[in-house]
């Protein structure tokens, strides 16, 4: 929309648009940043083609799902440090259960794995609710346990799944420029998140994260809202673990470990406030794609990919600082 278009709008809708911008900076800022990063990538690597796009989508898919898992809990005012281990468990379950099966069998096993994820989330939520131990401690501990469980299920990387199943994410069904991984991402995130955010449940989760006392006094069962957030986190983590099987073709007991922290990085960059109640799920998903682009760009630029972590960390600091400055600037009005 050009500047003139905006000015010709009636002031009411301009005010609404401005308010939307102010409340959802990530929804505008993140796509802009991603587009800029894509342009940069094409400039430094003119040969960037459909294959590179597919690799990017494959790398981003598990991270995006990890970010979704983390985002739901953080929006509800908590934190989940067991996202990575939950992904590992789902990953090794998929790798070992699906190795000799058919496509339909793999789909059925997926349902079971999602159920396991939901149960893991439920366990986290119940422990937080009943024990009143801080959620950082609870999820760190359950994360340790689940990390061990993953190693018990599968000691070293192996297993596999039917090719047709892997192709749900690894293939290109419609066009080589539309990787299945992207479609898979949009479909599963939409399928899990849309019913939540469109219902009273979403309202409860946001209210609980924004101000637990005010929500409690408004008659919200805040314990229930937090419990549900952990269950959704478990489901997203299981989806992430299955996605790892699809993108790597195997199961590996330590495959999920890095996703606890990189998922947190993605939600912070994607505009979810660590103090809860603010942000959504689109920002974190785009941030996950952006973060997956960094190591690729470094390879294109012939720079040690280990600089990726440094850049990722710097990006987080900049985003968090910008958020802080924006808040104090607004406060002075």
């Amino acid at each position, binding site marked *: 929309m050009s500047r003139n278009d905006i000015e010709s709008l009636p002031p009411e809708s301009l005010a609404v648009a401005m308010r939307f911008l102010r409340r959802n900076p990530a929804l505008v800022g993140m796509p802009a940043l991603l587009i800029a990063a894509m342009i940069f990538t094409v400039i430094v690597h003119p040969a960037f083609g459909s294959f590179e796009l597919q690799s990017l989508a494959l790398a981003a898919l598990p991270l995006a799902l990890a970010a979704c898992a983390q985002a739901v809990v953080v929006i509800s005012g908590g934190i989940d440090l067991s996202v990575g281990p939950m992904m590992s468990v789902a990953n090794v379950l998929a790798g070992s259960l699906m190795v000799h099966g058919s496509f339909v069998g793999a789909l059925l096993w997926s349902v079971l794995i999602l159920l396991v994820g939901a149960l893991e989330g439920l366990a986290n939520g119940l422990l937080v609710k009943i024990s009143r131990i801080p959620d950082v401690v609870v999820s760190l501990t359950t994360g340790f346990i689940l990390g061990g469980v993953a190693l018990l299920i599968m000691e070293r990387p192996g297993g596999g799944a039917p090719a047709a199943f892997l192709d749900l994410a690894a293939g290109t069904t419609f066009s080589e420029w539309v990787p299945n991984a992207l479609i898979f991402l949009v479909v599963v995130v939409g399928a899990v998140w849309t019913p939540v955010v469109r219902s009273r449940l979403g309202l409860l989760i946001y*209210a609980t994260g*924004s101000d637990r006392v005010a929500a*409690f*006094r*408004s008659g*919200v*069962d805040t314990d229930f809202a937090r419990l549900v957030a952990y269950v959704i986190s478990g489901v997203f983590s299981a989806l992430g673990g299955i996605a790892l099987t699809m993108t790597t073709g195997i199961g590996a007991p330590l495959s999920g470990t890095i996703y606890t922290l990189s998922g947190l990085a993605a939600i912070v960059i994607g505009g979810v406030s660590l103090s809860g109640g603010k942000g959504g799920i689109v920002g974190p998903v785009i941030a996950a794609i952006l973060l997956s682009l960094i190591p690729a760009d470094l390879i294109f630029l012939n720079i040690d990919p280990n600089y990726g972590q440094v850049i990722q960390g710097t990006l987080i600091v900049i985003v968090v600082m910008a958020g802080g400055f924006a808040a104090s600037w607004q406060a002075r009005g």
Partner: protein
Amino acid sequence: MADTGVVLSVHDIAKGFGSVQALSAAQLDIRSGEVHALMGANGAGKSTLVKILTGVYSADGGTVILNGQPRVFHSPAEARGAGIVSVYQDPALVPDLTVAQNMRLARVALPDVRGWLDELGISQLDDRALVRELPYTTLRLIDFARALASNPVILLLDEITAALPADLAEQVFKIVRAWREVGKSVIFISHRMAEVSSLCDRATVLRDGKTVGVVEMAAKGSDERIVSLMLGAEIAKRTAAAVTRSLRSTANSEGPAALEVKNLHYGHALNGVSFMLRRGEVLGVSALEGQGQQELFDCIAGVRRYDKGSIAADGKDLKPRHPADAIRAGVVLIPANRLEALLPQRSIAENAALAGFGRLASWGPIAMADERSRVANAVRRLQIDTRAEAEVKRLSGGNQQKVVIARWLASGFKTLLCFDPTRGIDIGTKQQIYALVRELASAGNAVLLFSSEMPEIALACDRAIVLYAGRVVHEMLAADANEASLLRAAHGLPPSGGALQ
């Protein structure tokens, strides 16, 4: 039960927290169609009783009978469902949701809320606005309207008028009266006796966790009776009048300048504030909600950095970049929200000693004996209730405020900035705090005092300035600073008399 007209009946409610017995035998009967005041000094058990009625706490013993049925509420949701809805001093609205979403959250119909907001004189509210973006006063009225819209059996108003401008408070009272006319019941909690006498039918008085009496407000001398019940026989002899007289005896208008503020600017909030505070003087600041008073106090105390203008403390330039700078210059702040200044999980002694640690010339070990004796002195001087001394968060609001004052007494200061120091504090403790403020001023300190309750300005100050839209619009002597003239000036009108400008 219906024949006696009692809708809510509370018998022998008890509740303890560790070693502190907050309630031991609370009784309360609410009839249909009455506004019933719940009175008591700080720590008498009022807020505990309210939390039991609204399902926040569960009682250790006793019964709650609502419409003839014994009830136990395990959560605020259950109490709301049964028809007990409360409006607290801090609005129970979720900041990151819109107004409309907050109404859905509490399962209240938006049109009903709008109807009540119209009655309160707020008809142009955008219900898609985020709660975070709305002014505090508006939020309190929305919270009130939301409670009314849920059509409760018992409406519980906890300090609803604290820091509410007088015109809006009157609006709230009008609605409460109309609410009573249709046979509804209201439990009203307020520290302002004038409101209680004009609005309420009966008052239940709590002292030390027990109900000590029920007063018919229509009876003659009901105010005095409530005060004497609240304070107990012994303290009641020291009447309010005596305290007021002693407060005024030491006015001083010719001391040297302790604080000289010139043309102070901060964002849009302060647009050139100038005034002078003399040593030995208590200068009152009066203003309606949001006229720059918070920013003014924050700028002087170093919580915010002012943009333009100058502040001189005892003749020396003061441009604090941090509260520590102001404290070093002897300028200290007592905020309205006690918990902003305190470490809630630490003991009284640690909290009181905290500011002293900042003054250490070296990084060596703390001189414990010296520290301890100074803190103990301050605690004794302020008569702080030390039953729950291990954790400040378990003290009542008035005692918490005293700990903040004790901190500055123990560390030493020259100029005291008091920002609404008695918000939500009972009458007895209020008078103690004002008497202390006067005493500190006559000992050669200077005090800048903002109070949202206008009668208190005339009570405790020598002079008063009135802020309006980030400027000082009037300055008057305390003798002229009655509620009417302050209110006129605070609304940007010329006070009927006594302006010095």
